[in-house]
């Protein structure tokens, strides 16, 4: 065995490799390295921190690993390779880990053969939540050279004292899907774990980040290496044989058919059957789980009715049992499925074989996300990625046209890192303490070095520590007992004194291990059919189920045979079944796309008014590559909007008043050129200002491009002149946003997640001790106000508020736009305008409470009394 000196043939990237590695590569890839590989190898070999940005299917895995494999093989050849951990690979997807292992096995096996060895000198291990206890022990006692893991498992390993020495020799950290991790709390958690791992190493390991397309100068690089290191960002062009994606936009409804959702759904099924007949495999992104279920159920029923094979359709989402999902992934890889419908779970990573078309129902929300989904198709060599946006309303159609337009131009959104989330700080502090006593100063220093935590204030850090040490409990009550003061909080996690902290008891370690991670899932009940786990439904839904009830899961209609605590037993039924409810965030447009839609809307309106309908139709067809009937559908929408109102301008705010959906309310619909997060901020401030003047409960409904407020009809006449102008005054805006938030439910609902991530309230409590009296909503309804009252500057209240103000509400964008003093245009309409119905869709509203409960109940009382006297309630 021998190693060659590095060849320096310029321009040939594989020249950096030892002969066996090179020989394997050249034999396997006669076309030579992809651009991504050619860029990455020298930089990685030169020991730089690298962020490799390249489209999917450009050989990223080898780009990251081959240089590392080469280094390890060289050391092995010189008998310098110790049996210790050298490289940690982290991916956000558990199933992806197995793919990576498979993808590594081929080169390792090939290189072994080139070297003529019986066994590869390099060992690879996988550690995820699915790893068996036996395998976990084996990994700990005989660590592999390359460890493949997830952010959660890495955090668990770091919390174990037994692993501390294992990290010493690590030289490389490979982080996959950086673009997906960076803007999330999960990513923030990982960025701290990376620093903690680095702290245990002898030589600071090199970081290699892999990312789908992201913009130049993006914060993804800062996320990867933190503020103290330099990172080389490599933008790899698509491989030469790759083709640009094609994107089609289709409307499921024809002009004149607006509002017929049943019709749109029937057409959707027909269109999907067409795709199934012509394409080998289609993946349908349905955004929400319930829709995924509905599509697959209907496709299957249709197939059965026609005597066709129904097993070629499958649903894939995170409420399905893990094993069931694995089966579906395998079926996809082996080409046994025609259509797989997914909420978001097939969006990332996991190798799903050869997909011909990616179909998006409605809108993907952003350009990056659409390109990511689209990139799941056409991965065969030489094939072209193909995507279809299927829309069922004119507003969706408009959004889809704009999304496609921006996607063709590659206008992807910038990555936004969540700045120093305090709930993640809390979880990481507990994790650190689980591994052993920790110095407070060191902990702070480690946190500051991570890309996500570089802005963490010392004061906030210390308050997190104080909370975990049980020092932020209730203040002394009026009835404080004199002797033996009880603890201020239950079950404190840490002790903290003299600049050190550690866990209070071994129970804390157990709780940490059972609750690690930042992924929020609603409490759920598992669903079993004939003893086999199918998946789960949320507890809030399961609570209402009784024997004989029917619902849909795994694309099948099921009937409840038995309800136990935490488990629902079902059998298949052929009767009609309902869709379970799953809590999910409604997808919304990105800031950039919303602004684009507003601009296009305005431009379309201008053309319609100045040049007429035909010109608009042509413009839609030409400029936006829209088909004829889709253009006519939009033309209809614009013409009817212009007939009763007007097209909202960019520097105007158009407010349309009309009777509300229930006739007991008056609706004020505000049209602005902003995305939902900015509209959330505006809507809350405006609601707060309305509520202060009117003194009654209101409800708001927020969407992309506008919001609506419902006002009780009986007080509509008392609305003072000028209320709308006042409501849009930028002065005191932030205070009023906060008031609007206080009177709604948004922060309390977010607090629920924050409390879970910070390990304040455990998702998986001590077995057999779950407290049920408070109900599923206890944390939002009781704990949130309690903590807020006893400790207003509690770090978790601060985090929930920050998350709402910065992540859910886009206050800066809202303020910037208000600062331009948009002109107010008011219109009174006989009914909600076409644009209001199309975009704002009032009715799915959140109550904003201004009355005391006594006043509201008095109103209820008088209403009931009136009803008893014969009026309508």
């Amino acid at each position: 065995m021998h190693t060659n000196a590095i060849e320096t043939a310029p321009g040939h990237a594989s020249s950096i490799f030892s002969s066996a590695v090179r020989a394997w590569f050249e034999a396997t890839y006669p076309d030579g390295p992809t651009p991504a590989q050619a860029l990455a190898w020298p930089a990685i070999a030169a020991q730089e921190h690298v962020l490799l940005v390249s489209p999917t299917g450009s050989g990223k895995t080898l780009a990251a690993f081959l240089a590392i494999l080469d280094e390890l093989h060289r050391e092995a050849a010189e008998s310098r390779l110790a049996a210790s951990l050298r490289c940690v690979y982290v991916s956000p997807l558990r199933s992806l880990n197995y793919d990576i292992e498979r993808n590594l096995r081929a080169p390792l096996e090939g290189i072994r053969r080139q070297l003529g060895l019986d066994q590869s000198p390099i060992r690879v291990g996988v550690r995820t939540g699915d790893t068996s206890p036996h395998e976990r022990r084996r990994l700990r006692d005989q660590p592999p050279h390359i460890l493949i893991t997830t952010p959660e498992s890495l955090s668990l390993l770091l919390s174990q004292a037994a692993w501390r020495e294992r990290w010493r020799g690590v030289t490389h950290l490979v982080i996959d899907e950086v673009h997906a991790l960076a803007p999330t709390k999960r990513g923030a958690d990982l960025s701290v774990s990376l620093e903690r791992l680095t702290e245990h190493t002898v030589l600071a390991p090199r970081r290699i980040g892999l990312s789908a397309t992201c913009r130049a100068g993006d914060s993804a690089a800062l996320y990867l290496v933190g503020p103290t290191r330099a990172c080389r960002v490599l933008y790899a062009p698509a491989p030469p044989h790759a083709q640009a994606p094609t994107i089609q936009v289709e409307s499921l409804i024809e002009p004149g058919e607006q509002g017929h959702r049943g019709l749109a759904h029937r057409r959707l099924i027909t269109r999907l059957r067409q795709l199934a007949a012509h394409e080998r495999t289609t993946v349908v992104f349905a955004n929400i789980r319930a829709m995924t279920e509905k599509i697959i159920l209907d496709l299957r029923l249709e197939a059965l009715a026609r005597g066709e094979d129904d097993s070629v359709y499958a649903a894939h989402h995170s409420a399905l049992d893990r094993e069931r999902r694995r089966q579906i992934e395998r079926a996809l890889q082996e080409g046994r499925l025609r259509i797989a419908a997914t909420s978001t779970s097939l969006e990332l990573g996991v190798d799903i074989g050869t997909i011909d078309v990616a179909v998006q129902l409605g809108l993907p929300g952003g350009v990056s996300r659409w390109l990511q989904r689209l990139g799941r198709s056409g991965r065969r060599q030489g094939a072209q990625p193909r995507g279809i946006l299927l829309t069922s309303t004119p507003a969706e159609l408009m959004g889809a046209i704009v999304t496609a337009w921006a996607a063709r131009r590659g206008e992807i959104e910038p990555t936004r890192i969540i700045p120093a989330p305090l709930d993640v700080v809390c979880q990481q502090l507990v994790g650190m303490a689980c591994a052993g006593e920790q110095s407070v100063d060191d902990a702070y220093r480690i946190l500051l070095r991570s890309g996500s935590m570089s802005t963490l204030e010392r004061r906030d850090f210390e308050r997190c520590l104080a909370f975990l040490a049980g020092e932020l409990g209730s203040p002394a009550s009026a009835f404080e007992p004199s002797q033996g003061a009880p603890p201020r909080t239950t079950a404190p996690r840490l002790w903290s004194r003299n600049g050190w902290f550690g866990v209070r008891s071994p129970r804390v370690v157990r709780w940490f291990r059972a609750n690690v991670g930042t992924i929020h899932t609603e409490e759920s009940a598992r669903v079993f059919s004939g003893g086999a786990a199918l998946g789960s439904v949320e507890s809030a839904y399961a609570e209402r189920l009784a024997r004989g009830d029917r619902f849909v899961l795994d694309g099948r209609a099921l009937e409840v045979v038995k309800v136990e605590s935490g488990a629902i037993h079902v059998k298949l039924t052929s009767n009609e079944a309902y869709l379970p409810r799953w809590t999910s965030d409604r997808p919304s447009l990105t800031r950039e796309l919303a602004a684009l839609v507003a601009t296009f809307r305005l431009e379309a309106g201008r053309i319609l008014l100045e040049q007429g309908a035909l010109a608009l139709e042509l413009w839609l067809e030409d400029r936006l590559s829209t088909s004829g009937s889709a253009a006519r559908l939009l033309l209809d929408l614009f013409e009817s909007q212009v007939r009763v109102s007007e097209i909202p301008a960019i520097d105007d705010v158009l407010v349309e008043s009309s009777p509300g959906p229930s006739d007991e309310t008056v609706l004020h619909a505000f049209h602005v050129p902003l995305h939902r997060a900015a509209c959330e901020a505006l809507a809350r401030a405006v609601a707060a200002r309305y509520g202060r003047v009117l003194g009654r409960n209101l409800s708001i409904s927020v969407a992309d491009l506008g919001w609506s407020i419902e006002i009780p009809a009986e007080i509509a006449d008392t609305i003072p002149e000028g209320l709308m102008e006042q409501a849009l005054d930028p002065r005191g805006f932030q205070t009023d946003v906060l008031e609007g938030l206080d009177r709604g439910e948004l922060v309390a609902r977010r607090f629920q997640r924050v409390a879970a991530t910070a390990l304040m309230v455990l998702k998986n409590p001590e077995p057999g001790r779950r407290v049920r009296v408070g109900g599923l909503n206890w944390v939002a309804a009781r704990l949130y106000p309690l903590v807020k009252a006893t400790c207003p500057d509690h770090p978790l209240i601060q985090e929930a508020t920050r998350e709402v103000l910065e992540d859910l509400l886009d206050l800066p964008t809202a303020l910037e736009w208000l600062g331009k003093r948009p002109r107010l245009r008011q219109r009174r309409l006989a009914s909600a305008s076409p644009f209001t119905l199309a975009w704002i869709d009032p009715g799915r509203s959140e109550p904003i409470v201004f009355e005391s409960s006594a006043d509201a109940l008095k109103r209820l009382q008088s209403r009931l009394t009136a009803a008893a006297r014969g009026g309508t309630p």
Partner: protein
Amino acid sequence: MNHAETDSRSFLHHGWALAPERAAVDLETRTAVIADLHLGYEWARGSAGDCVPRHSLAETLDRLAGLFARHAVERLIIAGDLVESTRPCESTLLDVTRLMRWLHDRGIELVALMGNHDLALARRGVAEVKQFAPRERFELRGWTIAHGHKRIAAARLISGHEHPVLRFEGLTAPCFLVADDMIVLPAFSSNASGRDVARGRIPERWARDQVRCVAAAEDRVLELGPLGAIRAAHLQLAVPVRGASLRPRRRSRKNP
């Protein structure tokens, strides 16, 4: 007269003043009845692993102090579920002891009735003050008072256990359900989530025409009339439920 207002804040039902502090007070015998205190709720959460602020004893005492300030009370009947945990810890026992001492200091006699959460507490006892021996039922002026988790033969029954509440426009108001032969008490503890009387499934006894709903709102109670009428009206009053509805919503365009 069966129903009358005592002061502007309470509601009188067969001699029982229903108070906004979630108590029924017999003015004649100066006896207050409350149920479902779930003391030690936070400690139970703590033993499950939650790290939450101490609060239930202070809230209980605050609410009782409010009640006693308006009604002269000499005897307090706790109609079951004094504690939350079926495995009460030391902190819970201390809270119970403190409550007992606090009542004792004010010269108020305590009568505890057995609730389904209290079994272990009764076995274990609260050593410091006296043997804690809750009874199954208590008779007063022809009314039987019991927790309500077991069937009990009684002509007129005052019970707890069900935690009735009225949900309305994002608000949750604890409520009493009353008829000539029953008073169902709301949970005294704010930690109990409650059974929604307007929309949830209800026991047969509540579905009778004569059952009326009296809601506690901050510092007053409000008589809202027959529960049946509330349930019938709830469709019009209901706030739309958030979340994706996939039943097609037909909406014809009203504009030309």
